[in-house]
């Protein structure tokens, strides 16, 4: 087992090196595609961090993403880049704590609708502020960040989301969230402060989403609320995480990669009908693969295992 671990560690180091060197060897189109892949990998994995164990479906991805992008639009030219990212982190975390404390008592459908409304609310607030106070709807983002820089930052963020996700899964917090996902009443009776556990993880997940938005902002040069707070992102992230399987750390990435490629293809070939086709794909995934690709893999492994345990019982 430890030999396999070592091999896996070596393979991921080699893979990371290749990924880190990628921008040196590809043209602008493939770099843009790689940025898209990383963006959705981080977003879907971050979504799965919280929604996987708790089974709360959040449509607030774009709210955090947009807040990150707007932080850059407002402060990008005034402060140094690391400071801007730090401020985005703080704003995203504060917002997540407030939203978490006020909504995580809601359950099921109420939570879904609230998170969807939240994204819309923040978008309208930004529009109101821009129209009435600054008197401009759009903003220009002039920061000295190249496409390659964006790629490398997203790569670091992707590594961070997997490392933190792995650490959480092994921690008491991760175990607490699995219990909450199974049965919240039992969790409380086991001595788990469910509010703190849920808000903590919701916040960690939201900070990653905010940072993705902040890092992606320089790509657009021109930003306005409908770009930064695009509801499609929230839905795409949910579809990706569900296709991959949100109950495993690496599940959402398995959905994010093929679907990002597919959406890219659809947008290029069928620009008018792409949303329609996306909807059909969403339905197919929910019906055909309720536990995602990871669920298929688990079933496959389970079919192999009974033979071994069967022998164990007889012996």
């Amino acid at each position, binding site marked *: 087992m430890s030999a396999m671990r070592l091999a896996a560690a070596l393979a991921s180091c080699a893979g990371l090196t290749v990924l880190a060197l990628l921008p040196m060897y590809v043209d602008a189109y493939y770099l843009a595609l790689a940025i898209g892949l990383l963006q959705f990998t981080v977003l879907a994995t971050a979504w799965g961090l919280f929604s996987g164990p708790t089974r709360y479906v959040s449509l607030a991805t774009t709210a955090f993403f947009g807040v990150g992008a707007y932080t850059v639009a407002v402060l990008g030219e005034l402060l140094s880049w690391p400071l801007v990212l730090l401020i985005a982190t703080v704003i995203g975390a504060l917002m997540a704590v407030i939203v978490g404390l006020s909504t995580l008592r809601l359950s099921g459908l109420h939570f879904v609708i609230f998170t969807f409304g939240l994204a819309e609310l923040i978008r309208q607030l930004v529009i109101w502020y821009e129209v009435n106070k600054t008197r401009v709807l759009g903003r220009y983002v002039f920061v000295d960040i190249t496409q390659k820089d964006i790629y490398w930052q997203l790569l670091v963020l992707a590594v961070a989301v997997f490392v933190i996700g792995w650490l959480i899964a092994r921690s*008491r917090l991760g175990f607490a969230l699995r219990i909450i996902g*199974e049965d919240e009443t039992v969790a*409380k*009776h*086991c*001595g*788990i402060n469910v509010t703190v556990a849920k808000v903590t993880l919701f916040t960690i997940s939201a900070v990653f989403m905010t940072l993705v938005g902040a890092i992606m902002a320089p790509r657009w040069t021109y930003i306005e609320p409908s770009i930064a707070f695009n509801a499609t992102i929230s839905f795409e992230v949910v579809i990706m995480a569900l296709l991959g399987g949100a109950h495993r750390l690496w599940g959402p990435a398995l959905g994010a990669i093929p679907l990002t490629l597919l959406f890219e293809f659809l947008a290029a070939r069928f620009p008018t009908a792409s949303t329609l086709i996306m909807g059909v794909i969403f339905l197919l995934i929910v019906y055909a693969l309720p536990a995602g690709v990871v669920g298929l893999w688990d079933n496959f492994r389970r079919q192999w295992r009974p033979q071994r345990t069967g022998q164990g019982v007889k012996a």
Partner: protein
Amino acid sequence: MTAAASTVLEIKGLVRAFGGLVAVNALDMTVRSGEIVGLLGPNGSGKTTALNLVSGVLRPDSGAIHFAGHDIAGMATHRIARLGLGRTFQLVRVLDGMNCAENVRAGLAFHPARLARSEMDVAAIRLLERVGLKDADQRLATELTYIDRKRLELARALALKPRLLLLDEWLAGLNPSELLIGIALIRSLKDEGLSILLVEHVMDAIRSLCDRCVVMNSGRKIAEGTPDEVLSDPAVIEAYLGAVADA
């Protein structure tokens, strides 16, 4: 008086209403150390509501609940659990997506006295053996039979190292031979010095296990005493069977 000094749970004037229905009305009762107290009453008399008030699922409208040196009336469930209150549920609640060892670790992991990972594994296996689930640690909770699910739930409650255990119809639904096993198991917990408050309808179990019983009807306490005393009390018989016909 020594009995007063070793009181584990003391409920005074507990009231909880749902709209116009007063589910628990001015309830007073105590559980002393090492004692099994039965909470009886017909369906809908407020027994489970009383347990939910003690374990913090519901907030009382008024009244006091003293447990482990604290007034826990209205305290959050997880804090009450950490004070040492273990509980099982009327409809068995086990964590179906996990194996038996993980189910028990759920009770161990959030205890104020932290255990190392290896200690926790040992403790989980010991608790599973304690309730009669030897070698079941790697089995999925979904694969268990009904009585084994009840055992698993009990093991999780015991993992909290409870000062008081609340059992909500833990013996309900067992067949006659399982019932004997279940009664023996609960008695062995009492022999270890555990204090237990149980809601139960199985009369054999009440007679053989309980030191004292409190009988509720329509939210009020209508009798208190040894099992034989309360089960022959006219008010209790009337509550269960209706008034004796005029003759």
